[in-house]
């Protein structure tokens, strides 16, 4: 990106300044994404940019981040917005610039750079593949960037004004590049050039190549965005790229990428939750006066109760039974809930877990004796025996199995958590079981990953069970899950 990094002047910030306008738009977009940038932070950012040259993009970015983004989970969202607003722009900062003109300009620039990089107007597919291969082999970032640009120009088939998202173009470009094949080729070459490389060494090199390919994908994505911004303008583009923050991602509709960021988010979350619960337990309110102990201690003062003694409150540690639907769409939700519950299992006196689809199986043993919860959750998905007839959710039957086999273990200290959308495929609900459980147990809670407005539509029968539960909660994202678990412990 050297071309538009170097020729930018350091703009003095004054009212009506294009940079100021741009910053305002930028901050408005951050807020739209869900990053809470307050007024003071806004002013700090304005102040900060006076001190750093806008030409030093990396520092400029950190200056904005340091003043506006105070939570690491928001970093990725910030980065995307920053990219759209600052990195991807042409040589000028006016937002109002004519779109068409800007697009032309950007195109010309690319062509010029493409020429410089390749020495020809258009590379043949073979030449491009070779260039890509060499760039990845050497880890030459300049060459990688040029290859990414060329690949987008050639394969993405971008047309101005076409209303498709960046993902579509990304998919088209990547499909043509066959990066998996390139990786195999790279590994083959590594294996043959050096005679004595062992598996360990190869693994390290593979990691290296994988990272380079990931970098290439980032470059391609950035290039596509850059062109889209030139075509559609900043605001529209920022809007299309708007993605929920990790804590707001819907469990039921998370893409693969979002799942990965959820998995990453859950570790710090559990740590925080555990620390908070421990603290809560320790610093609970003082208990009532312990009369006996006060009198006992007053003896050393001649019977004068100088030092009143209080009872230590011993908050009840609940005994948890998790009964989770793990069929298709709600499986992800069950995974995250199990993960969270086990991660803070020290806050409970006992945790037992059951999973079901139309049959039901106890999976407590998967979690015992291992400190790798992710691994255990994975085993639950692959090993648990949860299919009875056809592998379609049957709450009635699953609850029946639970009642027959485990109801005796449900006692007055037990809290039963039922996780599922209660989409019963029109089977018998058997809601009397929930009623009976509620009478035996301390609490019965139902967590439903569907939006409340979908409840009791179609084959959802939450309404049948709800009257017998102590609470039915909508838990669609990590934020709601955290709030519930916090309440529970």
């Amino acid at each position, binding site marked *: 990106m050297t071309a538009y990094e170097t020729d930018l002047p350091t703009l003095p910030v004054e009212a009506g300044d294009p940079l100021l306008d741009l910053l305002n738009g930028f901050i408005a977009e951050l807020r739209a994404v869900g990053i809470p940038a307050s007024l003071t932070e806004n002013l700090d950012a304005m102040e900060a940019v006076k001190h750093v040259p806008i030409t030093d993009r990396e520092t400029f970015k950190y*200056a904005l981040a340091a003043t506006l983004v105070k939570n690491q989970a928001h970093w990725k969202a910030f980065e995307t917005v920053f990219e759209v607003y600052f990195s991807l722009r042409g040589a000028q900062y006016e937002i109002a610039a004519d779109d068409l003109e800007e697009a032309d300009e950007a195109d010309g620039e690319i062509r010029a750079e493409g020429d410089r990089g390749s020495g020809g107007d258009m590379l043949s597919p073979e030449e491009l593949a070779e260039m890509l291969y060499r760039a990845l082999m050497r880890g030459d970032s300049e060459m990688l960037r040029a290859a990414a640009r060329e690949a987008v120009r050639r394969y993405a088939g971008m047309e101005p004004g076409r209303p498709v998202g960046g993902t579509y173009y990304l998919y088209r470009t990547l499909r043509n590049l066959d990066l998996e094949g390139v990786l195999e080729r790279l590994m083959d070459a590594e294996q043959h050039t050096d005679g004595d490389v062992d598996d360990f060494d190869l693994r390290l090199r593979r990691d290296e190549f994988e990272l380079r390919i990931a970098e290439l994908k980032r470059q391609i994505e950035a290039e596509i965005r850059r062109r889209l911004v030139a075509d559609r303008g900043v605001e529209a583009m920022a809007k299309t790229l708007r993605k929920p923050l990790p804590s707001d991602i819907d469990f039921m509709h998370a893409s693969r990428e979002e799942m990965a960021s959820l998995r990453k988010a859950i570790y710090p979350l559990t740590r925080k939750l555990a620390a908070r619960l421990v603290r809560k337990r320790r610093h609970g309110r003082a208990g009532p006066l312990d009369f006996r102990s006060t009198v006992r201690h007053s003896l050393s003062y001649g019977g004068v109760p100088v030092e009143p003694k209080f009872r230590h409150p011993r908050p009840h540690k609940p005994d948890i039974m998790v009964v989770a639907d793990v069929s298709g769409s709600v499986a992800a939700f069950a995974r995250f809930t199990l993960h969270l519950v086990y991660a803070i299992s020290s806050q409970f006196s006992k945790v037992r877990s059951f999973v079901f689809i139309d049959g039901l199986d106890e999976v407590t043993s998967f979690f015992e004796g291992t400190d*790798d919860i992710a691994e255990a959750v994975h085993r639950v998905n692959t090993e648990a025996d949860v299919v009875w007839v056809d592998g379609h959710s049957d709450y009635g039957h699953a609850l029946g199995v639970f009642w027959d086999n485990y109801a005796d273990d449900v006692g007055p200290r037990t809290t039963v958590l039922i996780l599922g959308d209660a989409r019963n495929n029109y089977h018998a609900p058997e809601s009397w079981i929930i009623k009976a459980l509620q009478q035996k147990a301390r609490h019965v809670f139902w967590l439903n990953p569907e939006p409340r407005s979908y409840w009791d539509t179609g084959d959802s029968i939450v309404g049948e069970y709800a009257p017998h539960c102590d609470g039915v909660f909508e838990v669609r994202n990590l934020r709601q899950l955290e709030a519930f678990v916090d309440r529970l412990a």
Partner: protein
Amino acid sequence: MSHRFADVAAVQQDLSKVEYLCDSGLAGVVYLADRLDKPVLVEGPAGTGKTQLAKSVAEMTGSRLIRLQCYEGLDEAKALYEWNYKKQLLRIQTERDADVGWDEVSDDIFSDEFLLTRPLLEAIRAVDPIVLLIDEVDRVEVETEALLLEILSEYQVSIPELGTMEALQVPLVFLTSNNTRELSEALKRRCLYLHIDYPTMEREKEIVLAKVPDIAENLADQVARVVRSIRRLELKKPPSVSETLDWARTLVLLGVQHIDADVAAETVNILLKYQSDIAKANKELATVEGIEP
């Protein structure tokens, strides 16, 4: 008003002179902290050099480092100031016989002489340049955080008996947090935020070369590569920079020239502290097929 640093590049250069290697983003935040007179809140995984940053900045600017280690139960008397109760008592006793009025005595015993300064007040009152490090601020309770707010935004401390003490010079303030709980909005708003993540492979190699004497360049390179591969796995506790350095030192002591699978398997317990992590790393590194990126 004079500033400590000329520009961002100078910060980065000076930091590398005291063997703290960083990227321009980090240097930029330190530079801004000086220009905007704002404290820096540093977060990040354990062992990535958060505390070291404050120490290095102190060393680089030739400032005195005042450190306040936070813990649960930290209070005003430990963080800000305390009246020297015993000395006050003595003062009263010595004047018992003399004919001194109440007003005089009370004016007297609530004066500078009877004030015990604690780190925060000390940083405010110092005349020499100061770097104030408030370490692991996430360990104090939310209520105690409020103690810090006045000093962080106004650089002053109010003592009811004495009035408001303003800073003689604005110290550079660093707060570190291991993120075990969410800090209050009020605190975050007053600070610049800096997240220090694990360094890139190249940076880590430089760190190893700088900090481990007598290490061969290709061994350092390998160390950084292996650590990077291990960090890509989903682990309970990924290796920190300090653990990388420990590992590198061990390898040098063992006289290892080249890391192969056996050496890695034997010494990986220096990098990883959980049995499940060690098992996973050994299993993963033995296979050529990578994990999904």
